[in-house]
């Protein structure tokens, strides 16, 4: 009899321990798979991390491209970072620099290949609103090419697409049928000023 009672107590204890263990385990699993519920008011969002990129605008005299250091949002991965850089480049330039990309031009898409080529798809305004002239067109094309090849490691050449399609040229002069390499000859060789 006494022996039977001892076995019963041991079984009960083992069952209790097993139940406790399962309960603790379930609570642990539940905590890691569900979103945290804030127990206090949320703090103000941390400022977006930014990086400094070198963008290329028209120099004040219109003769060349001027390298300008500009803060742009940090993004995850080269494609997202490339988009941030291009979106910043398509904004009106800070004074005293001149716009070399027609206003209203937007970024439609960006593709990167493993071979180091970037395909930058710009909206039709880049061509339709371009003022023309070989000089102005060279500045437009190489503002994009130089910005991508300077700031994105691994990008060696850039091909412009216009409105989703391959194009002969932007304004009738510069051959954009193939990816283009960086052209430092169009850049004024002086230290790049920083613009916040």
């Amino acid at each position, binding site marked *: 009899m006494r022996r039977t009672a001892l076995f019963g107590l041991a079984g009960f204890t083992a069952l209790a321990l097993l139940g406790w263990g399962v309960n603790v385990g379930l609570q642990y699993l539940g905590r890691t798979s569900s979103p945290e519920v804030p127990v206090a008011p949320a703090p103000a969002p941390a400022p977006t991390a930014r990086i400094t990129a070198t963008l290329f605008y028209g120099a004040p005299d219109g*003769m060349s491209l001027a390298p300008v250091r500009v803060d742009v949002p940090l993004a995850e991965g080269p494609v997202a970072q490339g988009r941030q850089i291009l979106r910043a480049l398509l904004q009106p330039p800070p004074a005293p620099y001149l716009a070399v990309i027609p206003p209203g031009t937007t970024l439609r898409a960006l593709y990167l290949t493993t071979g180091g080529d970037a395909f930058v798809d710009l909206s039709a305004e880049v061509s339709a609103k371009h*003022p023309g*002239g070989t*000089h102005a067109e060279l500045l437009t094309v190489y503002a994009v090419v130089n910005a991508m090849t300077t700031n994105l490691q691994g990008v060696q050449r850039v091909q412009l697409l216009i409105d989703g399609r391959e194009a002969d*040229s932007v304004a009738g*002069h*510069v051959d954009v049928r193939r990816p283009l390499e960086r052209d430092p000859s169009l850049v004024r060789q002086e230290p790049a000023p920083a613009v916040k």
Partner: protein
Amino acid sequence: MAQGPAPISVVSAAGRRALPVTLVNGQEYVALDDVAAFLPLAVREDRQGGVVITLRGRSIVASRDRALVSVDGRVVALPGPLTRTGNRWLAPVDFVPRALGPLADQRVEYRRGSRLLVLGMVRVPRVTTRVESAGAGARVTVEIVPPAGVMTVSETDRVAIRIDADALDVAPVSGTAPAVALVRADQAVLTVTLAPAAGDAKVTATTQDTAARVVIDIAPPGQEPEVSTAAPAPAPAPPPPPLAVATPGVRTVVIDPGHGGADGGVKGAGGTLEKQVTLDVAKRLKSLLEARLGVHVVLTRDDDRAVTLDERTATANNAKGHVFVSLHMNGAPSPAQTGPAVFFMRLDREGEDTRREAGAQAQALPVLGGGTRVIETIRWDLAQARHIEESRRLAALLAGALEGREGSAPAPMQPAPLRVLAGLDMPAVLFEMGYLTNPAQEKAAANDDARAALVQAVYEAVNRFATEPAPPPPAPARPPAPARGRR
């Protein structure tokens, strides 16, 4: 209506004659029957009060109330409408070059500053005279563009410069000096008359590729003239440019007037369109090259129509051109940017590979009658790859011809990946003649003299390219000699 303006001088191979001018509403007009003396035109009135002028089988239709005429179907603007006085029809002076010029079989050019109407390939160089004081003496510099042979005769009180030309397009003399009493041009002779108190004059004549120059150094009384060391050494003046010279290796020249049709190219603030300037310069260039060099000139467009870049390339390659010049006006984000620029093709890595492969892939194929013929294959869209060095030489010659011109900035020469050049199977350049975004250059682009100067520069470059031998290719680098050392 008032009479009064001096007549215009008409210069042609037949000589020089006067064309009377009448003022109508402040504009200078000429009578069409006077013009008919040197251009075989016929005037016929229609029933609606208009007039039809026929020249070489083609017609110009005009009305009395509109400053526009239809020239062989194309509308041309004039400073004023044609008008009738008695039995005579009068037309603005500009009617002659703008409306009759395109229908004539010869050059018809009006030099407004010197009131010369130039017909055909006569030599009418621009003569610019500058007078400067030099201490108690003076210096007179006479520049002749394009260069022409000169012969100078010095007398005690004057220096006569006889220029080998049919007439002179004389610009107003700039500057004065007490030692110089008068500078006067008569036919093809420019006479510099010295003041009574002036000393002796020393004359130096030089000729460069782009201009002939005569410098007259006038000494103070009682002294020998000092010839500035800055003056180039005297050189014998060459004969005037020959007509229809042989141009070995260059028999067909392709001129490409940029843009056209709905694509106007760059538009200046004053409304000047690139496509209009390029077409006009191209037509002038065609006339000059054909007359002077005897080459066949093909235009990729000869009217205001759209031509794709591939069509331009195809036209040139099908014509088997030996030289290609694409004409453009430039644009910049700043109106301050100015000056001409000459571009030639720049190859990227892909193009360089194509150039190397072109030679390596040459195939010797048998031909009828025995023997073989070497066929080089190259990608059609990179045919320019094997002409890069010759294109660079042509660009350098054109840039050099531009640098010597008065008022022109040094012409930069720049390689660039240009679409219209890529597929051309001949030496080729793209010539940006000036910035339409610069107000002064836009104004100059409308000026006859400025356009003539651009034409002259291209002519000189093509002429030198055709007649001067290409420099030998650089010798391949030799491997370094083995170092000699003591053992």
